């Protein structure tokens, strides 16, 4: 294919940018910001070119590039995207410039390091979504931890050090488990055909033939590592700390992209490599997801800190995605892919808005606020739209995703129990409770605090960054076909293939 280098370009631009930043003088913060923004916007533009050349009807990997990297172990540099990774890739390249733009005023110290780490993080995130070799994937997967550790640890809140270390150790523990599984499967490939390999296409062929007893362990090793990232209940405890302590930009990237890597990993690796085990564990994982939905919602309800509330709402929202994936139906999977993007947009916007408030008042306590609708009407309106989108009100993006997921779960023959869908649906009601209750306490009612009277409304920069997200929140809500059509072919092919493998052809 003629465009085989474009993904490598996509990886190269932020990497180049990161090193370019290193060469800039430290004291010229605004220059560094502009250069950082320039590189991330360029990355976004390249990803749009990618979109324009993307063939929606082709279910296979596109823009592939592959060459041997380490010959002794048959490790390849192999990249490519399909309709499932494309939306996530675009989400990544879209959110990165927005977060960099939004931290224009909130990040004042060590701007050089911040921009450097953000660009490095973007390299890692893009790499995860485009890798088609397990080794390459693993390298990017782990590589992201270091910039994220510093972003939380240097620019975070009061308890940033605790949160960053917890985040690091949790994720690393999970991913090492995956590493052993990767090596095991690579080795199995070695015993079956021509030597050790980490090429994903080989894993797809060999994985289903692994004896089921061992396959189950391998599946668990992969899935636990992804479940920690998602985070699936009960592996979620790192998330509230990391989200709350991270700076706004970190929270947005964390919620917007990093959590999706877990669910993406399940779609790309866990399920297709080990389809029989995936089917075997599907009810258990879905049960955990349902617990996560209810638990996340209940805990979110009692939070006093706005950011923590949003963090726990992520646990609930990602539970939906997991159910959608493990329903093994085209609807559920479509919904899951869309919901991943939706969550990135809505929760990203929520974190940005909480950041807007925090920057002015330096508190995220819900009880400190009240009645700011009169003081900051623009903020109040946007905040309401974003909350409604997160709840899943028809007309906004959240509804489409959740509806498709619930439909899929309801029809699913693998789950074979409508209780999943029914209990999960109650999560939507809970979401309405905790988000609207928060909205009521923060925005409506009498002005609670004299300090709030001097609150200024959103400035242009903030309007731009949230506004860009709002466009897509509404677009997906009104006309989701644009976005669903990207992943349609890939999702159908995926469901067809896995169902075939499960039922034994």
């Amino acid at each position, binding site marked *: 294919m003629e465009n085989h280098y474009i993904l490598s370009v996509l990886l190269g631009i932020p990497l180049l940018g990161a090193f370019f930043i290193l060469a800039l003088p430290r004291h010229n913060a605004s220059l560094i910001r502009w250069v950082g923004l320039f590189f991330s916007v360029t990355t976004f533009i390249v990803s749009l070119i990618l979109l324009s050349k993307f063939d929606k009807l082709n279910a296979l990997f596109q823009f592939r590039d592959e060459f041997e990297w380490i010959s002794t172990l048959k490790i390849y540099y192999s990249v490519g995207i399909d309709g499932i990774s494309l939306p996530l890739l675009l989400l990544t390249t879209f959110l990165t410039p927005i977060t960099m733009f939004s931290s224009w005023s909130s990040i004042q110290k060590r701007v050089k390091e911040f921009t450097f780490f953000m660009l490095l993080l973007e390299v890692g995130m893009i790499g995860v979504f485009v890798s088609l070799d397990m080794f390459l994937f693993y390298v990017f997967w782990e590589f992201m931890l270091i910039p994220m550790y510093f972003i939380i640890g240097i620019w975070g809140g009061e308890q940033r050090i605790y949160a960053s270390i917890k985040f690091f150790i949790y994720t690393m523990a999970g991913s090492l488990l995956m590493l052993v599984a990767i*090596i095991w499967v690579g080795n199995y490939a070695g015993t079956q055909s021509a030597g050790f390999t980490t090429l994903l296409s080989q894993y797809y062929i060999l994985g289903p033939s692994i004896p089921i007893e061992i396959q189950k362990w391998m599946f668990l090793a992969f899935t636990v590592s992804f479940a920690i990232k998602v985070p699936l209940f009960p592996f979620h405890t790192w998330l509230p700390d990391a989200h709350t302590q991270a700076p706004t930009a970190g929270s947005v990237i964390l919620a917007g992209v990093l959590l999706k890597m877990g669910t993406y990993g399940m779609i790309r690796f866990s399920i297709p490599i080990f389809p029989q085990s995936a089917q075997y564990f599907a009810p258990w994982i879905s049960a955990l997801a349902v617990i996560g939905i209810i638990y996340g919602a209940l805990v979110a309800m009692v939070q006093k800190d706005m950011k923590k509330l949003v963090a726990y709402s992520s646990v609930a929202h990602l539970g939906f995605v997991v159910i959608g994936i493990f329903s093994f139906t085209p609807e559920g999977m479509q919904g899951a892919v869309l919901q991943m993007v939706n969550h990135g947009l809505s929760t990203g916007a929520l974190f940005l808005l909480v950041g807007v408030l925090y920057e002015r008042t330096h508190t995220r306590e819900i009880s400190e606020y009240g009645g700011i609708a009169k003081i900051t009407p623009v903020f109040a309106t946007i905040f309401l739209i974003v909350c409604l989108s997160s709840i899943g009100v028809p007309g906004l993006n959240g509804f489409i995703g959740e509806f498709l997921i619930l439909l899929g779960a309801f029809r699913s023959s693998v789950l074979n129990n409508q209780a999943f869908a029914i209990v999960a649906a109650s999560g939507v009601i809970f979401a309405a409770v905790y988000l609207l209750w928060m909205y009521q306490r923060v925005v409506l009612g009498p002005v609670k605090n004299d300090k709030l009277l001097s609150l200024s409304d959103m400035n242009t920069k903030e309007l731009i960054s949230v506004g860009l997200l709002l466009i897509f929140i509404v677009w997906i809500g009104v006309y989701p076909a644009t976005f669903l059509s990207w992943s349609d072919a890939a999702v159908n092919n995926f469901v067809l293939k896995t169902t075939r493998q499960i039922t034994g052809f």
Partner: protein
Amino acid sequence: MNTNYFFESLNFLRPEVVITVFLAVVLSFDLAFPKLKKVLPYLTALGIIISSGYAVQDFLSMQQPQPISSASKLPLLAFDALAVFFKIIILASSLFLVIFSEKSSEIKSTVERLGEYYSLILGMILGMLILVAATDFLLIYLAIELMSLSSYVLAGFLKTSTKSTEASLKYVIYGSVASGIMLFGISLAYGMTQTTNLFVAANSLTMNPGNPILLVFVSLMILSGIGYKISSVPFHFWTPDVYEGAPIPITAYLSVASKAAGFAVLIRFVKTVYPPVDGLMMISAYNINWKQILIYLSIMTMTLGNLSALWQDNLKRMLAYSSIAHAGVVLAAMATMNDEGITAILIYFVIYLLMNFGAFFIVMLIRNEINSEHIDDYNGLGYKMPFYGVMLSIFLVSLTGLPPTAGFIGKLYVFLALVNSKMIFLALIALLNSVISLYYYIRVMKHLYLMGSNDQAETLKVSFSNILVALILAIPVILFGIYFGPVADFAKNSAVMLGVR
């Protein structure tokens, strides 16, 4: 006695001969020109460079493994890829040792004794070079003693520092006990087999295994001598104190070269004397289940090393415990008892050399500035000394084993060997240990960057030579993390041993 034969065998010993000559040169130069102490490091470095040149030449021209025999035609030393590989590792670390010593303020404070310092270093190198090739119990013992005696003095080289003196004393006491036990084991082995030669002993034991209990005792006694060198648990007690007390260049050297030599002799001893456990051999009473022994040693060593490192506030001490843990990882690869495991060990040592020397180098340079290795004194140093901060972070990330650094590759090959030998359980223990180690390594980065004053203090100017040395260590650490084909091939070609199938 055939004198021709003697000269012929010298051909195989060119690195050792060069070191011996330079040992004499350094000693006599120091006596003849006591004012010219400044020349000594260069002289030593020259000797090491020439010696390693020969070693590299040996490696490139290596055909078949050859014995280097005594007059009685029994192989005393092996001339094989494994030995030459370890010679290169040892000589490379020796070169770093000389460079570090030149940069260390601790060593500079003892300028009037530099002559002894460098001759002891050369003596230690000589001992190691012989040790990695020795195929005779007596020669192994003598080589261990030669390197140990030199390192005892070097560990206590800072006469005025009580810690250094204490380190030396502890080192001597533990060392003598360990080598005493080993010597006892060797003498019992001689009693069983009437030989000190490894190959003859192996043959004799195959014919007549003797009392199995005695054999186990003998093996464990010899193992304890080697275990002491590689600081494996339960022979590790000296390590933290000695590493903390000794001057940093010596600590770094002990943690890399001395361990490499210990592992070389362990590989040779186990693989030569005890043929692989397979099929019919299992029935023989002669077989000791080295696999089990090494698995237990490895688990204990990794876990204890890592758990103890968690609590250390002194960076040197932390690195000492971390080096115990790394020895445990290498022991895990050793426990596979196959070529793949040995390849993994060799890869690990190439990488470990770079990253551990790197970490110690930066710790030493920081010590030169702030005169402390305490972790609390590192608060905010990442901003005051940005270059050191970044470099130390790279080395620590690599020691943790995170991609894209070389440390990850080292761990990857160990995991590969373990999974390939169906030792998933040990792989999982190693994995858990990596997670534990992450905590204390990022703790240093936490102090460097996340804690301490946030003011943009003026940054420290770093001399060009320091940058150069740090980069020589750091660039391969990154490079081998991304492209490690050459290292893997180098190690694969080196896993060839005399007299082992």
